[in-house]
């Protein structure tokens, strides 16, 4: 797996993590650790570029879950978030995905992760959406 990071400036600074390779239970930790390090270093808005990820298993979902938990809203908003997710009106404002392949999108949809992770298909639009 190859990981690289770029910084983009929209309304807010956006950190883009580009992933190259399959995400399975053999490789997900490397991906998750790298994303969590970006957050520890101060990144507040993270876009994960999945364009070069041909395949992702539930291990990748587990990693996204972990990253999402680091970026989740403060406790007082939790109730609103919970209601919004159930109603299908809430998407994470700080963690978004870019250009997943059809197979990866299938995994995201099958697991319901597309319900609250915003999936973008264009870098500029994605950055501007934060």
């Amino acid at each position, binding site marked *: 797996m190859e990981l690289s990071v770029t910084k983009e400036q929209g309304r807010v600074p956006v950190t883009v993590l580009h992933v190259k390779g399959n995400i399975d239970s*053999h490789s997900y930790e490397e991906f998750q650790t790298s994303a969590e390090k970006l957050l520890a270093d101060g990144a507040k808005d993270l876009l994960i570029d999945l364009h070069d990820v041909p395949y992702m*298993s539930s291990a990748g979902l587990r990693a996204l879950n972990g990253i999402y*938990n680091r970026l989740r809203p403060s406790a007082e908003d939790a109730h609103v978030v919970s209601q919004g997710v159930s109603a299908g009106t809430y998407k994470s404002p700080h963690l978004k995905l870019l250009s997943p392949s059809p197979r990866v999108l*299938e*995994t995201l949809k*099958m*697991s319901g*992760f597309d319900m*609250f992770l915003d999936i973008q298909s264009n870098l500029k639009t994605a950055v501007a959406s934060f």
Partner: protein
Amino acid sequence: MSELDSLTCRRIVMLSPLRFVRAFDGSLEQLSPIRDFVGETVRLLGGNEDDAFAAELATDEAATNVFHHAFENLRGRITLTLWRQENKLVIQMHYYGKSFDPSLIPEPDLKLPLAERPIGGMGMYIMRQLMDEVRFEFDAVNGNVLTMRRILNLSERYGFMELSVERPAPDAAVVHISGSVDGSNYKQLISQAETLHAEGVNRIVLEVSGCEYMSSSGLVALNAITKLLRGERMPDTEDGWAVLKTLDDARVGQSKAQLALVNPTPRVDRVLDLAGLKNLVPIYPDTKAALAAMA
């Protein structure tokens, strides 16, 4: 086809699937080779890209669970066996290790926010989404078996075989086969050869560029036609797959081949290769070369 015939065919398909078997070490680095093996095999068995993806992902999830939970950090091994059961793909995973009660694995609540979701259960959920059946049998002595079945996305041409015959010489015939040769129609191919043989044909070229799929029943037909053209007793197709073992390979090469294949698709070619039939039935790039070689 009479009722008896269709029953017989069904029984042969059940008795004689071509099985693809491979063992893997129980380590996470093996997930990628496991997916490659499963994907390639599913395509050989007639599945499309969606079937291959579903099988790869479900097997990956199953293997990951076994490595993490059943082996408990000890080095185990899994054996994967794949075969086709009529319109279904069957994937079987055999391993020794800890058992569990699958009914106790909760279905994940997909409406729950990520932060509130329990970790785990997603792998099993994905397996059940992708497969039509997921069944565990635990046996401490003989090993545990996970069986997954999926109805394949077969084309409308499944079960459909078209034969057309050319007679370039009084003793030679070229049979063009298109569609799929499987348990539902392989006897039709054998009777076509019998008819030709009765008319004095002793060289048959099967031109199979349009044959999308050949099951083990198709291989049984090749065996039967070989014997027919050699003037040997035709095998009882009731014996299914076992008849392939009756071929006397030592005889191959002693007499000129009287049956040849022309232009198989890569999928059919690989099935022939894996079944060891390439020694028996020579393959030529075109009909002319095949006829010349058998003249």
